[in-house]
């Protein structure tokens, strides 16, 4: 078997590079990270004609090989390192037909690295509409390459790319620009000092600002008989390189690329007039946000209810079918409950990423950046921070990774630090269950109180993020000079395939990533909740029996029995049963229920004296002023691993404490405090919601912040500040409302 052909896909942002990648690899792709850094690495396998296979690497989008960000420096680093296992046998430069000139700049640079380079001209289906005509043959000759005209939308040209890749050995690897023209004198000196080296490669190593390949750079600085130029001079020469390349490109395009502006028509201008309008622009943006929230709250509730009920049924089925024992308990109460707690997220996460990828694919996201830039400036941010902050409403992890497009380090750091305040989807289940419990039904202007509360929580999170950004902007003393510039891509109908891939990929990475933590914690909790060391735990049965003998059933149990009997009586009357028969069967029912109530009291006594109960009790004085009991205390404590654990923890705690497999929400509603009032009331509910709104409860985010800022300082500051602030806010809320 021969080795796979290594292919690197390279291109400007917004050229449909990812669509080409999807078409080439189908679902045979893998998304990971480059070692040591959080730049996303997408790779896949593509089957070529004649049984050959290609390993395709989708490199981050870049405008040129003059890098200003981590993402871009990665591209250069790979292309300069022949020993890298991913070093391409052939480079495929993806360009879009409308911006061919600019895309060719990158093409010529890569070609000058003496890598066989194929040019893909994507979005060929737009040529007619834009009045563009191409002389492909001449262009191939002038650029000394092979060209594939592709439309990922119409699914044409992909086979041509595959053929060209399979036949890569016939593609020229000759450079196109005489790079010594950049500075003949300088390149002459380079040549005499490093006769073995490729001069353009050396030139790139010398001119990059980013700190990569320190060894190579050092070798140049250490060369005794060679002096490099000052930064300013080098920058001048980089300008010259750009000018030279554009001269070359213009000469080629003059002969081969014609645009008939009269034939060009487009939606861009008219859509931009509306979407970036002073009033309508904001209104539309706001309406889209509202739609997203409505989708997450209302539409996803159907699949979520379905999941909730079925996991409860599954747990019950396991308990009834399998022989009783520790393993069955573990399976039903630990594992199934834990998995249920993960799966229930899927509808919401899928909806969020659906919307976010629709907005990005359509080109609307850049308009949001344009609209919001001026508004974000007082907070020390730019329009570019809007995308991470909005993505933060799905998950802080990809959001913090998305800050890499912000060139300004101070701005980027501030965005990283405040993003965890935005309402990530992990907070959603906590909010949803609490809102359903404590916010009354009813509506205002067609929007339910519950939906409005959710919206308010999102606004609080966002507001807090902005407020802390403003404070950080004043406090942080970091000098950073970088420009704000964003490309406004053409509007496009989103490709369902791309949107689908994004949704699947993000959901999968959530389930596999965060899911593992949640499941592990669920099992640990189950163990801690069903074991104890004290005598009280071991002798729970006799202690509870004695107490019931002396004091009767607890208030909760009495209510439980009475409620069930009342319900039965109402039912029986409705069915027309005789009064005497009702009395008799109620008598039997009462005995059954009391028995069950005793079993429940024993279980709950056991829980109270289990390992977890004791930990919770020790923790209780701290959370009592916030309106929580020790059970909620445990849930809050375990949530510091990941917020979404909250509901799962309560599910585990309660199902350990009860014989019934009720759905979590009903069980929470039945919880009473010391005075026999519902434990989850408006005051404690709001206090909890505020705590979750502000606290930094996510290990994965802390890990990402550590990686992105390259120090433990910032994540620790985040953890400390946010958690203390959350405690204070929750305390105030409960004390005022109760």
């Amino acid at each position, binding site marked *: 078997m021969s080795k796979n052909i290594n292919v690197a896909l390279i291109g400007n942002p917004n050229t449909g590079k990812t669509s080409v990648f999807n078409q080439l690899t189908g679902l045979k792709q893998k998304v990971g990270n480059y070692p040591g850094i959080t730049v996303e690495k997408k790779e896949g396998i593509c089957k070529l004609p004649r049984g050959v296979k290609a390993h395709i690497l989708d490199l981050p989008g870049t405008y040129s090989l003059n890098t200003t960000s981590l993402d871009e420096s990665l591209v250069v680093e790979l292309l300069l390192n022949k020993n890298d296992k991913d070093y391409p046998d052939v480079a495929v430069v993806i360009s879009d037909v409308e911006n061919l000139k600019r895309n060719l700049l990158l093409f010529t640079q890569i070609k000058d690295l003496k890598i066989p380079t194929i040019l893909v001209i994507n979005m060929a289906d737009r040529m007619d509409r834009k009045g563009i005509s191409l002389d492909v043959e001449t262009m191939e000759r002038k650029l000394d390459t092979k060209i594939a005209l592709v439309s990922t939308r119409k699914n044409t040209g992909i086979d041509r790319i595959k053929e060209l890749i399979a036949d890569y050995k016939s593609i020229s690897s000759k450079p196109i620009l005489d790079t010594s023209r950049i500075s003949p004198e300088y390149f002459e000196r380079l040549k005499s000092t490093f006769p073995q080296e490729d001069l353009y490669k050396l030139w790139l190593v010398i001119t990059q600002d980013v700190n990569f390949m320190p060894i190579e750079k050092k070798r140049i600085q250490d060369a005794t008989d060679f002096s490099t130029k000052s930064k300013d001079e080098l920058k001048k020469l980089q300008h010259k390189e750009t000018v030279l390349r*554009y001269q070359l490109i213009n000469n080629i395009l003059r002969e081969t690329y014609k645009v008939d502006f009269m034939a060009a028509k487009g939606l861009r201008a008219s859509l931009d007039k509306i979407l*970036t309008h002073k009033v309508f622009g904001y209104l539309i943006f706001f309406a889209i946000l509202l739609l997203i929230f409505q989708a997450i709250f209302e539409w996803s509730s159907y699949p979520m209810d379905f999941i909730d009920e079925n996991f409860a049924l599954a747990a019950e089925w396991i308990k009834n079918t399998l022989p009783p024992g520790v393993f069955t308990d573990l399976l039903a109460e630990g594992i199934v409950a834990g998995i249920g707690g993960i799966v229930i997220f899927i509808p919401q996460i899928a909806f969020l990423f659906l919307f976010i990828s629709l907005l990005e694919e359509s080109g609307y996201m850049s308009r949001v950046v344009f*609209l919001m*830039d001026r508004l974000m400036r007082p907070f020390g941010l730019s329009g570019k921070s809007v995308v991470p902050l909005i993505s933060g409403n799905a998950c802080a992890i990809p959001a913090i990774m998305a800050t890499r497009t912000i060139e300004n380090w101070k701005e980027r750091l501030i965005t990283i630090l405040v993003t965890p305040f935005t309402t990530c989807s992990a907070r959603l289940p906590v909010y949803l269950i609490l809102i359903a419990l404590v916010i009354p039904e009813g509506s205002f202007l067609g929007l339910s109180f519950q939906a409005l509360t959710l919206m308010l929580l999102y606004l609080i999170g966002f507001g807090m993020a902005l407020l802390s950004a403003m404070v950080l902007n004043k406090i942080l003393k970091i000098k950073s000079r970088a*420009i*704000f510039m964003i490309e406004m891509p053409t509007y496009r109908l989103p490709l369902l395939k791309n949107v689908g891939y994004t949704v699947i990929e993000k959901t999968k990475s959530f389930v596999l990533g965060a899911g593992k933590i949640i499941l592990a914690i669920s099992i640990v909790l189950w163990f801690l909740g069903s074991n104890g060391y004290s005598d009280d735990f071991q002798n729970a049965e006799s202690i509870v029996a004695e107490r019931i003998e002396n004091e009767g059933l607890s208030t909760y149990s009495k209510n439980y029995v009475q409620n069930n009997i009342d319900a039965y009586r109402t039912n029986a009357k409705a069915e027309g049963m005789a009064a005497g028969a009702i009395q008799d069967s109620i008598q039997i029912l009462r005995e059954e229920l009391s028995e069950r109530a005793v079993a429940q009291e024993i279980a709950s006594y056991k829980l109270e004296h289990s390992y977890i109960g004791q930990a919770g009790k020790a923790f209780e004085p701290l959370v009592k002023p916030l309106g929580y009991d020790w059970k909620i205390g445990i849930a809050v404590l375990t949530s510091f691993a990941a917020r979404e654990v909250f509901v799962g923890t309560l599910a585990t705690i309660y199902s350990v404490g009860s014989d019934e497999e009720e759905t979590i929400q009903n069980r929470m509603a039945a919880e009473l405090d010391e005075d026999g009032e519902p434990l989850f009331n408006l005051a404690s509910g709001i206090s909890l919601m505020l705590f979750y709104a502000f606290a930094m409860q996510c290990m994965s985010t802390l890990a990402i912040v550590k990686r992105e800022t390259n120090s433990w300082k910032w994540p620790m500051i985040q953890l400390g500040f946010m958690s203390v602030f959350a405690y204070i806010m929750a305390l105030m809320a409960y004390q005022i409302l109760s």
Partner: protein
Amino acid sequence: MTVADLQYGQKGIIKDFTEHILPIKLLELGCLPGNSVELLQIAPLNDPIYINLSGSHLAIRRSLAALIELEIIEETQAK
């Protein structure tokens, strides 16, 4: 006259520049002497501006736009 002074409907040609104050990124996107710049939109709060820079559609802030000198070549009557 700079890009920041452009009015709706005005189009200009970038003047020769010798000062290397412009970021290289801008050059790569087509900000080179002789290329055209057209103002497309102004953001609601008057900043940033949205331009067509020789085929590249970009949004930049006024402070950066003020560094790019140009000569007006086309003036369609705009309201």
